[in-house]
């Protein structure tokens, strides 16, 4: 069996694991916080999305590089 294609796809898939774990942790903390103290949601929401944006950054750079170098 012959497999052809770019290794970039595999590389990007591997790099997305890190971002996935990070985003999961961010929202885990956010959900736990809101569940314990529902009135804190307004305060926590921008922080959670900020954390999402920062953790996501590396995965996005990986996606762009996978396309550029491919």
């Amino acid at each position, binding site marked *: 069996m012959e497999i052809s294609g770019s290794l970039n796809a595999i590389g990007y898939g591997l790099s997305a694991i890190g971002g996935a774990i990070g985003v999961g942790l961010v929202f885990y903390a956010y959900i736990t916080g809101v569940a314990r103290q529902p009135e804190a949601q*307004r*305060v926590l*929401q*921008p922080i959670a*999305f*900020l954390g*999402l*944006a920062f953790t*996501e*950054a590396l995965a*996005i*750079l990986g*996606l*762009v590089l996978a*396309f550029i170098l491919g």
Partner: protein
Amino acid sequence: MIALALPAATTGEGFVPPTTDELHLPDVLPWAADYGTGVGKQMILVLLSVVIIAWFFSKAAKKQALVPSKLQLVGEMGYGLVRDSIGKDIIGQRDFLKFVPLLFTVFFFVLVNNIYGAIPLIQLPSFSHPGSAYVLAGIIYVLWITIGIRKHGIGYFKMVVVPSGVPWPLLIILIPIEIISNFLVRPITHSLRLFATMMAGHLIVLLAGSGIEYLLVLQDNIFLQATSVLVLVGGVAMYMLEALIMVIQAYVFTLLTAIYIQGALADEH
């Protein structure tokens, strides 16, 4: 995605997944492309978005009834979201009002341009080309540096780059990191986050579409054709997810704009 796992069966031709070339549609004015001013679909959509936003909000704000109509309610809710949950909560009570028009414009500009990707027949987010995202993030980049310099003078750069309360040997490592993270990576990620999510979302929907076409139209086997239903279900689910991501990305872009402005206005790093 199921289509990718299938053998290149009866027709003899394998499945060809869509590539990034699909994002470069032919020019609207073909003769203009020779002069390097090709007007693509994305440009038309950006211009259209300005018209849509201006039309919608001037209509929503025209009659300010005490009991708001549906249109006025939607307009006021959008304004309230940007003003309170992004402007007031992030930039702070003292000087957020100055920046509400900017945040409002950025939020709805990005939102309408993203939502294009979820509208049938248009089905192309304007930010699926990186150029428009670079420009938008570049404007914000120049803006928050200008705000910082006007507020703190030229010492603003020192304030951003040198963290306070750190023993001096560490500064040798920290200063280059701070320069790179604040002045290089920040605008790059700000623009690429928007571009990459839009492009990836568009490609996923395209992939599902071409998978359905391959299974349903190009196959002879009735059982293979039936599996296209699975791809359709998965494709609709991805489409819903993308619609959610489009709204979230508009929110995140505006939120980051507010955070950068707040960082430039803050007294201490």
